[in-house]
């Protein structure tokens, strides 16, 4: 007969020790460096993995329970939002283009983050680090799933949402966020942690999530807002992981400091370039503005980031390079980016437009040093021409930066009237860059960046047409063929907001919801 033994309840600390650190062991059949083959090649020296401090002491069983609760609440709200036609409560249909940008450009990165953390979680010899990466990996796949669910609701009513998995791999502007993450995921495990765990999740995350989540709240999009709040507790954990990771590397060996510094320089720049898209969204795409890009940069980077780098100074870490240039450019990049999407609206899966008079005045007030002088004249000119039926559609393909893959739209440090051109020669070929930051990154690892899949060059090589398409046929419509390859519906997904199907449908449906017609 079995003896009934009173089960001893484990304390939090004990339970944590048993369910995380105790799960690891040193291998004997194979040497540890063969089991963890990526642990050393980046030059980071770790002497004692047990010094890793787990920021959250969360165990897997508690993780599942907690996340399931959160997810249940989130889906209840997403369902209610869908059933009540919540999409008709947004400020105006232009707002939906901000969601298109997010779901096409950012959600796939959530999935890549899932893969990335799963990958590095396998590669770190330290158990605590591995468990933390596993949890973040799961967080990220949950984020991508909930975002896909949120998107499926918009996809029922609006254009441009229907094929984000193809588009992220093909569409010219989506190569910007995609190549950013491809760069991180093909780096070693330590660089990945600085790239995504620290630079993106810690230093820059507020610049991504606050604008979108507050933007959603300001513009009546409860679904997206709820997702944002639900993800917040995960984000807090991610930020702590990123910070712990960098401190751990810096404390383990002074020789790690210059390596980590270079990664900070690189990934602050890479992240900043991707955030150009967010800046443009804030300044141009939210019918009800939250704050300007410039204000967000000042609060979330200059103030908060400044405090962080003061704190890291004791390890010999300095703030990222090129901050002077970034400080100058905060008056310009959002306008330059919106102008780019206005130029190439024919090849885009969201709509663009010229701001209203009120919006132009808001921009003048937020950007007294730049808007009226450099950007208002071109926007007003475009608006005039559009009124005459001569809307500007740039149909010639732009030159791209080899590193960030953004068209060469950025201007010289200190001179917003001159495009910034930089180039390097490597093995007898020229490579071009939008900035000193992007050139620096290339020059340090040219073998990596010569492989960039640059959409414009790929089109010219004939790699962006569907099978069977003959580009030598008489009267061949190259742009049309490329849009087919992108799976973009011409006249629905692309072109100006004015006159778009989205605009007409939203007006009609909102009319039905609010008037007796």
């Amino acid at each position: 007969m079995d003896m009934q033994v009173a089960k001893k309840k484990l304390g939090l600390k004990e339970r944590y020790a048993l369910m995380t650190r105790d799960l690891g062991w040193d291998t004997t059949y194979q040497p540890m460096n063969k089991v963890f083959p990526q642990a050393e090649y980046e030059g980071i020296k770790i002497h004692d993995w047990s010094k890793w401090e787990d920021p959250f002491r969360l165990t897997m069983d508690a993780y599942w329970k907690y996340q399931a609760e959160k997810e249940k609440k989130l889906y209840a709200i997403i369902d209610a939002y869908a059933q009540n036609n919540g999409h008709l409560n947004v400020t105006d249909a232009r707002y939906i283009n901000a969601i298109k940008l997010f779901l096409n450009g950012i959600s796939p990165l959530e999935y890549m983050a899932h893969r990335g953390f799963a990958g590095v979680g396998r590669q770190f010899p330290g158990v605590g680090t591995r468990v933390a990466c596993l949890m973040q990996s799961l967080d990220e796949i949950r984020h991508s799933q909930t975002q896909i669910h949120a998107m499926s609701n918009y996809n029922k009513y609006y254009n441009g949402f229907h094929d984000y998995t193809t588009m992220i791999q093909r569409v010219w502007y989506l190569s910007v966020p995609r190549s950013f993450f491809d760069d991180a995921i093909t780096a070693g495990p330590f660089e990945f942690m600085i790239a995504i765990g620290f630079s993106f999740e810690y230093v820059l995350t507020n610049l991504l999530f606050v604008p979108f989540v507050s933007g959603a709240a300001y513009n009546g999009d409860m679904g997206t807002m709820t997702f944002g709040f639900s993800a917040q507790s995960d984000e807090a954990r991610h930020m702590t992981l990123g910070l712990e990771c960098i401190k751990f590397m810096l404390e383990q060996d002074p020789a790690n400091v210059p390596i980590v510094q270079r990664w900070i320089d690189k990934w602050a720049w890479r992240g900043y370039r991707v955030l150009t898209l967010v800046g443009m969204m804030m300044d141009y795409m939210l019918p009800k503005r939250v704050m300007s890009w410039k204000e967000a940069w000042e609060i979330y980077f200059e103030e908060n980031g400044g405090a962080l780098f003061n704190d890291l100074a004791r390890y010999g870490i300095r703030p990222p390079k090129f901050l002077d240039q970034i400080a100058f450019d905060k008056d310009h990049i959002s306008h330059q980016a919106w102008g780019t999407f206005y130029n190439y609206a024919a090849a885009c899966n969201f709509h663009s437009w010229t701001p209203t008079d009120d919006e132009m005045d808001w921009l003048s007030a937020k950007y007294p040093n730049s808007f009226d002088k450099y950007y208002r004249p071109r926007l007003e000119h475009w608006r005039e021409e559009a009124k005459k039926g001569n809307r500007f559609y740039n149909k010639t393909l732009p030159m791209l930066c080899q590193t960030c893959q953004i068209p060469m739209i950025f201007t010289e440090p200190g001179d917003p009237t001159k495009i910034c051109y930089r180039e390097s020669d490597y093995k007898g070929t020229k490579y071009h860059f939008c900035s000193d930051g992007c050139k620096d990154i290339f020059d340090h690892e040219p073998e990596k960046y010569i492989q960039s899949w640059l959409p414009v060059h790929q089109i010219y090589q004939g790699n962006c047409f569907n099978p069977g398409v003959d580009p030598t046929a008489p009267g061949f419509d190259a742009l049309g063929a490329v849009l087919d390859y992108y799976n973009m519906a011409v006249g629905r997904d692309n072109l100006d907001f004015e006159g778009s199907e989205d605009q007409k449908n939203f007006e009609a449906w909102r009319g039905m919801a609010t008037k007796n017609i």
Partner: protein
Amino acid sequence: MGVAAIKEYVGENKDRLENFHGNQLLYVGWEDHLMFCAPFAFPFPPAMRFGDVIEKVLPGAFGYHPDWAKIDWSKVEWFKSGQPWAPNFAKSLAENGLRHKDVVRFRTPGLTGIKGSCS
């Protein structure tokens, strides 16, 4: 060291000249006219006359701008990789020394875009 890697690693340049079916890339930017958000990229045969680029291709790319029709081509200043440069319109790209992925810019003195904003 061209890259951090666990073993010998060689990348593939995706934009080798031979991938462009007999063309080479030429990038062209118009100074002080940033209404065109970035310089353009074109695939041209190296034997193409440089003047044909100006006369037959660029109007389609830049012609939307009200300044385009006002350009006095005899006064235009040219730059190659940022250095002053004097193209011969009658000669080919190759004869003008233009190689794959070269970048040229032109400045049109007196023309500074929409309301002088360099747009």
